[in-house]
């Protein structure tokens, strides 16, 4: 990076900024090289002949239109009402009009109209249709890599149009013609080769876990175990690999282990499925999404576990909660042999899969855990809802449980809790700015700008209530905030996990 990346100023009145067309046109993540592309079954690079690429793009678009109702309906239904236009954190932070959700959709809609609708074929100018050119494809690459697939726009659209679906389709098309993004595709390659996004091999994982056992023993005097690949354990914990060594993620992992310890439920991690994250979703590729998830199915069958619990990770929870039953049969209610095989093994008296927050909250309600709340008194805490948890999943039995349960846990383990402004939380929460496969250094400028609305809301409660800890349940949020908080003048340790707070306060051993 030539210039140092700085934070944009807070908006004095948080209204919509004036447009700055083209201001982010230069935001272009690294392109995946041939090896990375081919490793996961995509063409290595764009064809030399443009016509070939052109035809392949249109053909792929046609295929996706026949496979995804979302894409088909969303490309037709938009009335350009503009309700979504000011809802995207990237638009607010960058002021680039192409980051308005509707404008982002129109990058593809213009092509859809030209090649798939009558008016677009007859009167392209009139309906905003245009020919597919190399410039258009480059524009897709830039701006579809400025969408974190956070779904905030879909909350406000009168037809529920979810720009994330369009972004995923665009990334799928780009991959299919050899124009993939390095960060996401390299990570997917690592999952298949090594088992997790960070490329942490089995023996290293084992060492790390042993080290953690020693640390916790030193800290608390208690033998809290971090079991790996234990056949016959009750619970298989699937957690983002960042939990194994990144800060502050690891503190939450310690929290999960302490909760399992206190609960007396036997549990295990898996070296084969040492990753909850699933970047197959980010690139909109069903086959990859399924293939990555299959590792979890295999591990569950092999270890013979009864329950599957998922650690703190936003998009991973979306995939687990909303997609696992579809992809790999983790869930209930199946009537096909493929899924029944697994569902017969799982204990369906429990939710499958279960979020670690559901697990902990359930125990708390049954009186199974006790806490020393004062241990968290140094923190004045707020909660950042992660987009995929908030708008694409649920916890507990009631809609909105994904908002209540983490907050309930925090209030149980700590005394000081403050909410941020209410148009920035719950279903209206702002993305951290690093989701959707954008958590890469070359996009730091975009990430910093995208964090603006969240940083404003955090600043407000910091000023008014002295908030010094923002809890969240997402590995990407944690990594992103650790990086951007200092740029906005906060301490990087302001962000942390919910189970980090649990870990601080949980009483072990004296029961």
């Amino acid at each position, binding site marked *: 990076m030539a210039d140092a990346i700085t934070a944009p100023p807070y908006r004095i009145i948080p209204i919509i900024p004036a447009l700055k067309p083209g201001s982010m046109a230069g935001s272009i993540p690294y392109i995946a090289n041939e090896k990375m592309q081919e490793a996961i079954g995509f063409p290595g690079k764009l064809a030399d002949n443009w016509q070939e690429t052109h035809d392949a793009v249109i053909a792929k678009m046609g295929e996706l239109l026949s496979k995804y109702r979302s894409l088909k309906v969303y490309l*037709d*239904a938009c009335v*350009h009402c503009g309700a979504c236009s000011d809802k995207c954190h990237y638009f607010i932070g960058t002021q680039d009009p192409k980051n308005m959700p509707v404008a982002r959709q129109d990058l593809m809609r213009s092509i859809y109209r030209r090649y798939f609708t009558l008016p677009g074929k007859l009167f392209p100018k009139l309906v905003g249709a245009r020919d597919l050119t190399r410039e258009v494809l480059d524009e897709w690459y830039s701006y579809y890599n400025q969408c974190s697939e956070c779904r905030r726009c879909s909350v406000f659209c009168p037809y529920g149009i979810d720009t994330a679906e369009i972004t995923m389709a665009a990334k799928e098309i780009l991959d299919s013609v050899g124009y993939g993004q390095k960060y996401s595709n390299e990570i997917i390659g690592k999952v298949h080769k090594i088992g997790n996004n960070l490329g942490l091999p089995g023996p290293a994982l084992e060492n790390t876990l042993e080290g953690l056992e020693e640390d916790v023993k030193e800290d608390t005097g208690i033998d809290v175990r971090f079991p790996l690949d234990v056949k016959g354990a009750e619970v298989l914990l699937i957690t983002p690999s960042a939990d194994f060594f990144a800060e502050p993620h690891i503190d939450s992992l310690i929290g999960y282990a302490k909760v399992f310890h206190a609960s007396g439920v036997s549990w295990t991690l898996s070296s084969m499925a040492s990753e909850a994250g699933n970047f197959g979703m980010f690139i909109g590729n069903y086959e990859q999404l399924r293939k990555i998830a299959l590792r979890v199915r295999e591990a569950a069958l092999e270890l013979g576990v009864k329950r599957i619990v998922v650690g703190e990770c936003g998009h991973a929870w979306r995939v687990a909660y909303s997609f696992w039953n579809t992809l790999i049969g983790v869930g*209930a209610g199946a009537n096909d042999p493929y899924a029944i095989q697994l569902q017969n093994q799982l204990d369906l008296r429990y939710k*499958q899969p279960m979020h670690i927050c559901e697990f902990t909250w359930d125990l708390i309600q049954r009186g199974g855990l006790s806490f020393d709340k004062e241990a968290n008194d140094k923190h004045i805490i707020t909660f950042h809802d992660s987009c995929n948890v908030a708008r694409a999943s649920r916890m507990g039995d009631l809609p909105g449980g994904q908002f209540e349960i983490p907050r309930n846990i925090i209030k149980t383990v700590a005394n000081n809790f403050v909410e941020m402004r209410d148009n920035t939380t719950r279903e209206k929460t702002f993305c951290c700015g690093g989701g959707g496969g954008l958590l890469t250094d070359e996009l730091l400028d975009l990430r910093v700008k995208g964090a603006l609305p969240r940083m404003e809301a955090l600043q407000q409660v910091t000023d008014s209530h002295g908030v010094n800890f923002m809890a969240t349940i997402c590995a990407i949020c944690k990594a992103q905030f650790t990086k951007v908080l200092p740029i906005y003048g906060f301490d990087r340790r302001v962000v942390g996990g919910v189970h980090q707070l649990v870990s601080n306060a949980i009483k072990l051993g004296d029961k």
Partner: protein
Amino acid sequence: MTTFLTLLFYFSAAVLLVGVSLKIAAYARTPAPLLIPTTPAPTTTGGVVLRMLREVTLFESLFKANLWTWAASMVFHASLALVLIRHLRYFTEPVWSWVALAQPFGLYAGLSMVLGLAGLWARRIFVERIRYISTPSDHLMLALLLSIAASGLCMKFFSHTDIIGVKSFILGMMRFDLQPLPADGALYLHLLLVASLLLIFPFSKLLHAPGVFFSPSRNQADNPREKRHLAPWAAELEK
């Protein structure tokens, strides 16, 4: 003119019916492989029906998004509904009693419809963001709707049309028994514009009307852990 307009109406009504049916069939046929309701979402089908009802009658999401747009489109759509009800008197003989009752409301609705449309257009022209995303067809659509409303109101307030004649023309069309249309410029214009609206419906953003019912983020129940949801092409991968 009578023959021309009659043929035009037959044609545009056919295009509308066939076009929209084909679109609906295509939406229905296209699988939705993954559950993607925007949460918090209802967990039962009954809940989904209620959510959809709130969405199409109260514009719930739009309300959350922007009060001005919500107000303008609410005024426009509600007025449009009343105006359409008022127009039912030309299509029914004897006129249904509730249609008769709604007549005066339908009249005021004609005026408020113009207001709503003007509000929407003003937003499109004066709000920088919305001007940016507007295509010529977005403006034309508003122009078309406004002209339909204006030509209709014109016949009520300035140059009265022989509405008995209009009614017999319309009933005649419906019974395939042609009756002469009163010669009246405003009426010709009004009918021409309406016919073109019907014609472009299946090819334009007016598809938002059927589309909303097929939007997976709004019409799916949030029950992925309880039920296995599998699209046919996705099931093939398990083979």
